[in-house]
């Protein structure tokens, strides 16, 4: 398998350069027990918001939407602020 990830800083780069950060989910309130967030994954087919880290590139995070069935990535990628 090979996938091109449209890094907003480096342009489209092969997926091997990236670290997958999992599904993007809302942050829980600080003191709430985040059992579901920690242990449960939605794992649903279709478009999924995700986190990707460009480990062998700009070393920055981004948020993007990938279709888990077709592996198509929405070109509209949000770069991280960090």
């Amino acid at each position, binding site marked *: 398998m*090979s996938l*091109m990830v449209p890094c907003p800083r480096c342009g489209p780069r092969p997926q091997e350069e990236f*670290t997958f*950060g999992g599904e993007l989910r809302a942050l829980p309130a600080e*003191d709430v027990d985040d*059992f579901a967030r920690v242990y449960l994954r939605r794992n649903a087919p279709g478009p999924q918001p995700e986190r990707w*880290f460009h480990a062998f590139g700009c*070393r920055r995070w981004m948020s993007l939407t990938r279709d888990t069935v077709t592996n198509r990535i929405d070109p509209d990628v949000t770069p991280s602020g960090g």
Partner: protein
Amino acid sequence: MGDALRFEGRRVAVEPGDTVASALYRAGVRTFTRSLKYHRRRGLFCMTGDCPNCSLNVDGDPGVRACTTDARDGQVVLRESGWPSAEHDLLHMTDRLRRFLPVGFYSKTFIRPRFVWGLAERVIRRATGVGRLPAGRAAGAKPARAVHVDLLVVGGGVAGLAAAAEAGAAGSRVMLVEERRLGATVWDARAVARIEALAQEATAAGVRILERHTAVGVYEGPFVPVVGPDEVLHIEAARVIAATGAVEAHAVFPGNDLPGVFLSRGAALLGVRHGVRPGRRAVVVATTDEGRTSAEALRSTGVEVLIHDGPVIAAEGSGRVRAVIIETPSGRERITCDTLVLSLGWAPRDALLRMGTDQEVAGAGEVVIPGCSLEEAEASGRRAANGRGEAASDVPTVPLASDGYVCLCEDVSLHDLEQAWDEGWRSSEILKRYTTATMGPCQGAVCGRPLAAFAGARADAVATAGARTTARPPARPIPLEDLAAGVDESIEQRTSLHDRHLELGARTERSGSWSRPTTFGDIEQEISAVRHRAGLLDVGTLGKFLVAGRDAAELMDRVFPVRVRDLAPGRSRYLVALDGAGYVMDDGLLAALDRGRFYLCSTSGGAPAMEAWLRDWIDRWDLHVHLLDQTAQLGAILLAGPNARTILERLTGDDVSAGALPHMRHAEITVADVPCRALRVGFVGEVGFELHHDRSRGPELYDALLEAGRPEGAQPFGLGALDTLRLEKGHLYLGQDTLPDDHPAKLGLQWAVAMDKPGFVGKPALERMRALPLERTMVGLRIDGEPRRGIPLLAGDRVVGRVTSSARSEAAGGTIALGWIRAVDGAFPTELFAGGSRTTVVPTPFYDPEGARVHA
């Protein structure tokens, strides 16, 4: 004397444009290989690299197809199949023993009694096979290179070149790969001229054309690995056009595998392109226009040609074609000849198209319109370039006769298929697995359609039974070593002291991606130096981060369980990093700097993940933090031992006394003119100074420390000594001693977790787990025996845990270890056995439990 290759000790002249096959054929070679199972003679058939018949050993490489390999002066060519030789093969008797070697015989004969198979397998393996692997040659020598293009065109014929030229002219970045040289497998001069013209047009349009490059398959992406003579390309293409053409259909009839049976393109290539007459008298059975045209071309080379369009009943001959029986309106006719030329239809080379069904792969030219004219092929290519590829046309298969070989690679006859069918293997996919038809080097290029037709004709009840078998990479045979291309290109990280270590005689090891010294000679002596005098350890591999910005303290406080708010500048604390589930990911040191900044050290292996982890939280919480990864920028040397301070004082004017710089404090000092951040740490259990410095100053600092340390008996040490030194202190190696689901309580690290902080990553999980009984814990062990790592710990006859680290320790007086144990009936056992030795759970540290030496 002109060019010549050496064939089995014999000199064979090479003409310009020759392939190995055409040169050998001109020299009278007719038997090129012996078939896999029955050792039947096989000769040239397709001349386009689509069948297995001409696989020879060329310059030591086995399984090289002679028909697509350019002949060169000095080449050494051998036939590998057959014993004692391909020409006089005694194993040919297997052809007479066919009824004792039925299809799938290896699955049902020689299997009882069991030991027989071991012997039989050795014999079978020696008797079969298409070549021997070259011994003693390293694989994977080719580099792998990543290429990104808008369009990849596979196949440099008329359609492929037209597609590439069209797309290139429209501004796309286009790469075209051709398995051979452009035009080398085309016999028609008109087609060759068109290919040359289109190649010029494509080159002018900026298309990169790579000859002798073979596309192996289509993977998700689309991603196409391409094997070239000196490299393997990993091609990421937005679009792929397969213009791989077609081969003439394989016909199944008795004698269809005899030398002298040719596909018409193969015969024409030999006669027209290479000037080698395939025979004196040829029967051409052609149902296609091209077949009739090529027959005329063959006639012009001086071959006596008899053209028929009726079905072939059989070819006769022993060892080569002597006569052909054909069906004519007036009945069956037997014609004496030495060559049989077939053009009975098409077999598109559609493997890439079928692999890429859900990818952006379009077909152009003969692969979708078999037998099309040059003009049609060109138009089809241009259409495909403009995104209007066509669906593959239906290709009628050649009717199967009464017997004959379906699969030339694996020696599977129609008779074998019928027998397998009768045994109950009733679809193309399971016939394939049972008979191994389509599983040879040609990957079903020749036999895929006949196999499907065989099953389809018999299984009308189940529609899928007669389907083509799934196309999988590799589409074309490639050397095994090409699959390993690029795998050795791993990155070895080195610190600035690497060369110094080698000069000092260090034996190095890979630790993660780093090359680090194991020892400089004697591990015991290195341990002794640290305990009694002083030692130097390169710790430049540690993760080193500068954390700055308005929210730096908030980030540290919320990510890590360590207490941060009361950490004054100049002080440092041990920290563990927890994930959301409360499991320990990494550990390290957090040092508070001035102006609200922090200096964070992680383990060497954990540095990349630590950076990603922190950046994720900075982003998710929208904090104002600057994180600077200084791992590669800074070096670090640990100077530890009772004499460490004396040595350091010789090189610095700064106050490094126990009062000025106590344990777990740090200061900016100058050592031998090198500015350093000196951190007091105690991983090895002695007075320790970690000197973090600019990487470029590393060697001079190291030299100065070695020099100043010599009178004090200081010496460099490596990971071997470190392993025992830290074990004597009961310090964990994360990853070696720990498991992925270890939370701090299991490791005895509760003291490093400030549960009264308002919140940190993993805190809710730790609170939840605090309510649960501890089922597993990390303990110190004393073993009455030799140190052994990884062995089970037994309580009675029950396995209750495992030893994760162990060493013989002089300081602790015996064999010590760390390991984890499970609770038995709610309590942790204390008397155990490890590898037959009595083992006792003891408190850690094993050495200097009060820590007096660290604080000195």
